[in-house]
């Protein structure tokens, strides 16, 4: 039995302008996401974790170490929390170059017994910052600033990485690039992360557990694909751009399209996607909107849509304004949420356990990374 304390043990009350944010959570995800609409208190929550807020109370323990214990008047200052914080607007130190920014947390890293040279090299290689080191931060583009802010946090030897809307201020093309850097950081540096975002897609890609906050309350928590499809959350998630996210491996290049295998168990479970630009065998992350696929009870013939996958209906439920069906693609394929209408469910006699084909066009698939 594992007796180690949870990575996060949080019971917070944070007074905001219109309401008080109450959040209780205990768990040990590799990467924790916090989802909510603007003004729901996500950033404030992150600032409380970083110790940057004055007025909040309750309890925060990270890996068993108390950072806040209001009843015992424990409040660890930000400099002692060993965190790497990347705010939405990056807050790079102006009038200095990239190297100076990356070295800002060098002292703490050394105090933590780490080798700065090694970490610095690892960070600059992972985030491809080598060519930018002598450049003034005022001359950096948005994507470069994001990478430098991330690098600065990592070069301070943190135990926890806090990311506030890491992709919000970037255009679609840059978002894809930075997302791949964030995945690299998540996998290479193996430290817990808390990601705050109003975009379900980012949290689905980066996190293994998500908290949903709305009007000061925690309304759902769990794995992202389950949480975002839950009643009361789906409408919020849909507004934020919820899509089905799944990973796959590039199997074949076919000019303007690629074949991507989306099952670990059976290599024949593949879909056709727009050209990924990735090498054969490379892992990619794709997404498809929940209102793009259609379901068929028979194997489709004579369709222009290139993708049809055999699946099984796991559940059918009402999200509030939509009927959703959760379909498991057979032979180790991903789970997909498909939006349906009431009469389609009735006409097809769809029920839990129904065998279906999930059909969608190649161009409905977005390659995220």
């Amino acid at each position, binding site marked *: 039995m594992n007796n180690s304390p949870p990575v996060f043990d949080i019971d917070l009350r944070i007074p905001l302008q219109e309401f008080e944010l109450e959040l209780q959570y205990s768990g040990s995800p590799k990467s924790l996401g916090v989802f909510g609409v603007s003004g729901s208190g996500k950033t404030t929550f992150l600032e409380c974790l970083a110790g940057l807020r004055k007025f909040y109370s309750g309890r925060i323990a990270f890996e068993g170490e108390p950072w806040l214990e209001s009843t015992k008047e424990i409040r660890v200052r*930000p*400099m002692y929390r060993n965190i790497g914080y990347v705010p939405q607007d990056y807050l790079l130190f102006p009038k200095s170059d990239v190297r100076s920014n990356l070295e800002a*947390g060098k002292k703490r890293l050394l105090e933590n017994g780490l080798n700065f040279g090694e970490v610095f090299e690892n960070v600059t290689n992972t985030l491809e910052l080598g060519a930018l080191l002598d450049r003034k931060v*005022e001359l950096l*583009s948005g994507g470069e600033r994001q990478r430098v802010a991330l690098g600065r*946090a990592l070069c*301070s030897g943190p135990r926890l990485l806090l990311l506030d809307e890491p992709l919000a201020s970037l255009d679609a093309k840059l978002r894809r690039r930075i997302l791949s850097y964030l995945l690299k950081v998540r996998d290479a540096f193996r430290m817990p992360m808390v990601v705050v975002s109003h975009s379900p897609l980012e949290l689905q890609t980066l996190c293994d557990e998500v908290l949903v906050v709305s009007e000061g309350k925690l309304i759902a928590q769990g794995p992202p694909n389950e949480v975002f499809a839950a009643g009361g959350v789906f409408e919020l998630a849909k507004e934020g751009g919820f899509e089905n996210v799944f990973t796959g491996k590039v199997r074949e290049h076919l000019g303007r399209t690629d074949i991507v295998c989306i099952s670990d168990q059976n290599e024949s479970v593949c879909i056709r996607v727009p050209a990924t630009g990735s090498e054969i065998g490379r892992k990619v992350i794709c997404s498809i909107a929940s209102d793009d696929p259609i379901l068929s009870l028979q194997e489709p013939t004579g369709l222009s849509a290139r993708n049809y996958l055999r699946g099984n209906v796991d559940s059918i439920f009402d999200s509030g304004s939509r009927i959703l069906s959760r379909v498991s693609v057979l032979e180790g394929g991903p789970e997909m949420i498909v939006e349906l209408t009431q009469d389609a469910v009735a006409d097809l006699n769809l029920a839990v356990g129904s065998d279906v084909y999930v059909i969608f066009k190649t161009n409905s698939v977005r390659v995220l990374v």
Partner: protein
Amino acid sequence: METIYETVVRTIGWASFSIGLICVPGVAIAYLLSRKEFAGKHVLSALTTLPLVLPPTAVGYLLLKVFADYGLLGPDTLGFDLRVLLTWKAVVVACSVMAFPIFVRTAKLAFDEVDPRLEDMGRTLGMSGWRVFYSVTLPLAARGLVAAMLLGFARSMGEFGATVIIAGNIPGKTQTLASAIFTAQQRGDDASATTLLWVALLVGFGIVYATERLSLRRVNTGGGRA
């Protein structure tokens, strides 16, 4: 007979000394007023501004009381004589007191312009409060602080009212550029008064121009490309 050159050099020296003297307490008070909330903050702010609104002669008279035999810093109170009145030290004291408000107000503006969230970033990177101050706040406020020093220096250079009351107007000893103009005008020495006026104009213009340039650069370095 003291030359105009000597008067100018001596005045520049006293003004520089005054700025050196008020730099540390001025920066500390400006930082406190800009960043901290504490009881009596507004009283402190009002007290530091007071010499700006009082007639300089009133400030001079107050200083005279402070350094008089029975004053707060007089020989009867301290037990020894600081030997301030009617010496160069009195000039420096008068200049420091009169330059203090403009220095603090300009320095406070410089600190106000530094985004406190940048200081927060420093803290999350493990920097102590002192390290945040000297490696984040101070470099970002540097231009504003230089402007504060320049404006304080200019105010010291032009100081007259408080100075004549506690330091007098003794040629070769406590006479400043301002009191030398006054003396020259009083005795009808138009040539000397005009030369001194030109020096005062040039120094004043140079300092205000430099301060404007510094402010302009501060504004220009705020942006970046998206």
